[in-house]
């Protein structure tokens, strides 16, 4: 016998689909089938069942090999490492639930850590831009129900957010959008003719790294001012035409991704894209939204927002919260040798930071909390495997439009395995002991 769990939330990307159906064995110990998920989401659920999964903490030996240790030993090592450090970096916090983020924050306060999440290499520059100019946005349902102009700038949901287009943006039929796809005009701006671009009415193949200039050109076009003949590789006629398409919409939505947050200009690219959105609100209704990557990177920004007032890169070392990307961001801290220990949970900087930063992690005491074996676990002294959030334990997560959704536990974790939250609670308790509280 099997049973089907409905309304399951997918813990992969910021789209946070909540309509998955998962078939599990009657005893709830085995996960058998996943329906409605994209290929990546399905793989995430199914991988939890891998037979070769690591289920106990490991410590690196002198010769480079791993030795299995108990959770107690892992807790003790982690607590001591954090308590001994003058300024530890506690990084990640995106592939986990808000409950774990909350406990992690208490640890951060106790040891004076710098807390940073994956926004630091993802939409951190968007957050800087929002601080400079704000952000007119909406929930994804507004897009589904109202939007008739969809602009994807430097993002490729066909690969990174596979169900985004069908659930929210291009295809769905909503309250005022009964015609679905045919009622919408889709524009893609990207230096490559991506698979998303192939679904669009218009693709502007911008010269890589010149998004700022092109966005600026849109603002000039809105105002009917004169443009140079070519901006960022795009002839002015195409820019005027695209600008008119946007202005003539009833509800414009701009989605943007790493193509602009990680290219030259970074926060400024987002800043001016938001300025474009502000401008459009003079003529019609317009909103803009970052395509957040990890399923709960948004949540960690929210938790730190209400606890400290900053969405990432929060330096707690002096007993209060400070923030300044460029200083308190992980890659700058590592590059400059500002931190003396590294704790990673819910992310894989070993795979996703420039190698020069990865080497700095390798050079320091470091602990990685991750269900998987990853390049990060490869450069850490201790690896603590944990249950998959959203599969083997529940908890709150925030969608890319900041909508909070409670993820579900659908299957039991392997016998004796801790969750992120449980492990962190043990570490916090041990740190309090060490500090004599």
């Amino acid at each position, binding site marked *: 016998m099997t049973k089907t769990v409905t309304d399951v939330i997918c813990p992969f990307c910021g789209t946070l689909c*909540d309509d998955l159906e998962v078939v599990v064995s009657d005893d709830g110990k085995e996960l058998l089938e996943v329906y409605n998920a994209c290929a990546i989401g399905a793989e995430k659920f199914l991988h939890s069942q891998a037979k070769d999964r690591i289920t106990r903490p490991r410590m690196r030996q002198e010769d480079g090999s791993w030795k299995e240790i108990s959770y107690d030993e892992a807790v003790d090592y982690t607590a001591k490492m954090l308590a001994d450090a003058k300024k530890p970096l506690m990084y990640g916090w995106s592939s986990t639930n808000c409950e774990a983020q909350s406990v992690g924050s208490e640890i951060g306060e106790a040891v004076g850590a710098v807390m940073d999440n994956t926004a630091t290499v993802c939409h951190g520059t968007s957050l800087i831009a929002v601080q400079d100019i704000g952000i007119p946005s*909406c929930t994804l*349902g507004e897009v589904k129900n109202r939007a008739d102009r969809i602009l994807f700038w430097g993002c490729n949901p066909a690969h990174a957010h596979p169900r985004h287009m069908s659930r929210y943006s291009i295809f769905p039929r909503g309250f005022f959008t009964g015609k679905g796809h045919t009622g919408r005009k889709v524009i893609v701006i990207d230096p490559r003719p991506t698979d998303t671009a192939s679904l669009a009415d218009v693709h502007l193949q911008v010269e890589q790294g010149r998004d700022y200039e092109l966005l600026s050109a849109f603002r000039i076009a809105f105002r009917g001012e004169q443009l140079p003949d070519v901006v960022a590789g795009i002839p002015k006629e195409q820019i005027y035409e695209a600008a008119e398409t946007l202005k003539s919409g009833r509800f414009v939505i701009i989605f943007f991704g790493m193509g602009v947050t990680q290219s030259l200009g970074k926060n400024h690219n987002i800043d001016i894209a938001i300025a474009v959105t502000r401008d459009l*609100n003079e003529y019609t209704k317009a*909103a803009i939204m970052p395509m957040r990557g990890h399923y709960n990177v948004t949540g960690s920004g929210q938790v730190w927002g209400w606890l400290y007032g*900053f969405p990432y890169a929060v330096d707690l070392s002096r007993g209060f919260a400070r923030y300044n990307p460029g200083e308190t961001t992980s890659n700058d801290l590592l590059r400059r040798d500002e931190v003396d220990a590294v704790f990673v949970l819910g992310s894989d900087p070993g795979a996703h930071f420039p190698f020069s930063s990865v080497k700095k992690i390798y050079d320091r005491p470091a602990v990685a909390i991750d269900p998987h074996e990853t390049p990060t676990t490869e450069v850490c002294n201790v690896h603590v495997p944990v249950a998959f959030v959203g599969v083997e334990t529940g908890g709150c997560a*925030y969608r890319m439009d*900041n909508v909070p*959704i409670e993820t579900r536990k659908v299957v039991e974790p392997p016998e004796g395995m801790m969750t992120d939250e449980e492990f962190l609670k043990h570490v916090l308790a041990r740190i309090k002991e060490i500090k004599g509280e």
Partner: protein
Amino acid sequence: MAEYLIKNGFVFDPVQGIKGDKTDVAIKDGKIVATTALSSPKVIDAAGKTVMAGGVDVHAHVAGPKVNAGRNFRPEDKLFGYKAQTGIERMQGGFSVPTTIRTGYNYARMGYTTVMEAAMPPLYARHTHEEMRDTPILDQGAYPVFGNNWFVLEYLKNHEIENAAAYIAWLLRATKGYAVKVVNPGGTEAWAWGLNCDNVHDPVPYFDITPAQIIKGLIEANEYLGLPHSMHMHANNLGNPGNYTTTLDSFKLSEGIKPNSKFGRDQVMHHTHVQFHSYGGDSWANVESKAKDIMAYVNSHDNITIDMGQVTLDETTTMTADGPFEHHLTELNHLKWANTDVELETGSGVVPYVYSPSIKVCAIQWAIGLELALLANDPMRVFMTTDHPNAGPFIRYPRIMKWLMSTEAREQQFDAFKHKDKVIDATNLAGIDRELDLYEIAQMTRAGPAKALGLAHMYGGLAPGLEADVAIYDFNPNEPYAPDDIETAFGSAEHLFKTGVQVVRDHEIASNGNKRTLWVNAKVNENPQVMRDVKEKFLRYYTVTLNNYEVTGHYLPNPYVIEVDATQ
């Protein structure tokens, strides 16, 4: 639990009619009790001090998505303003939009123990509850917004009060909400197309309903259910010169409706931050106070309560579910603007704002707020708020007390204005010499809001049986004082008890308290049509499934449920 006896203080308690008499207050098992009920109390000597119930804030934006948007997009609001962790106090930061930890502590430092979050977007209810959970000490509840909700618009278009009521009951349960909040009825839905509803008769695009129908219908639905609080109203046309007529039109929609509530309130409409709704003139050049007209109406209609929305002349962060207003504001001051339209339900905007004493309009706004309170015949129906943080941060309440209690303090402020004479011309305040006393202050900050919330059985006074929320201030009302002494004393309670736990001791935070979240569980007759509509809308238009919508379990670790039976 420890017993306490607070001896010899000057007690101000509107519930018992005690006007500064020396009275002892006894605390046992979290409640106020008769002094005879104590066996071995800890004695607090309050001689020469002022004793009041814990403060009750009827309207503040302290938790939820737009508050956090305000925090996260204003790093400059926290620059150099942090407070390091010490003892039991966790890290605190933020001036106009403090962190949740600082919010709890700062209210407690002022002697407040109950604070209502004024606008909860239902889809973001979980977020709001997470923040309230992490706000120490305070009892809190949150008002879900209804005035632009598609269900409400569709039901009230046809005056289906029973269906609207069933939906309200369902949503209060799903979101763990406390009351029916209305913000710019219809206008925020219109804003989803970049439009607005400018007055109560301006129809909502597509939905074929007017704000007047929404307002009246929600009052009726609220009374159909007999909820503890009345419909809580932020009218159309906020912040615009000449808007007082819209405000009066909105007030009038409550005429002839009687409260149906066993929770002891007398009003059917609470209108919030009325300062923002009391403007005459037709441009910013000739804007003037219409507080007299507004208060003439309020004073003569018992079924209305209001709060001030007092401008405090600070740099602050405005935030409201009135999406079109925030867009209007960013067009005026060119500062950063955040906006979120929420599918089927509501919207919101956030914009920083500097209320400068050098700007005439800001000074006029300051005067109007004070006029509302000083022209009130019944302080039990006019409450002190700053619509935190919209007109200023809540930490300025003691300063507002100073202004209300002292003409000298008001004159000092007038003298500090750059356009003093023009401000005097455009307002009534300079001609008002009323000085409120502490009893009236207690009415406006304790007993009044508690009663209007339908919580007079718990909060707002010091009668035996009430929650033991007691504040002791180092202030002797019977000795001469300078205006600033008021601000100093009431800005830093000497002691504060919250449900019998001492949370402030000698002006310092002594405990993280026993915070509760209040919500209203209204039982109604089964209503298959409404449940069908709910299922249908979730299936077709929402982007979360119905089964993932309801806020449950650990989001409210310490809930306090108020049961209402509206089955009949």
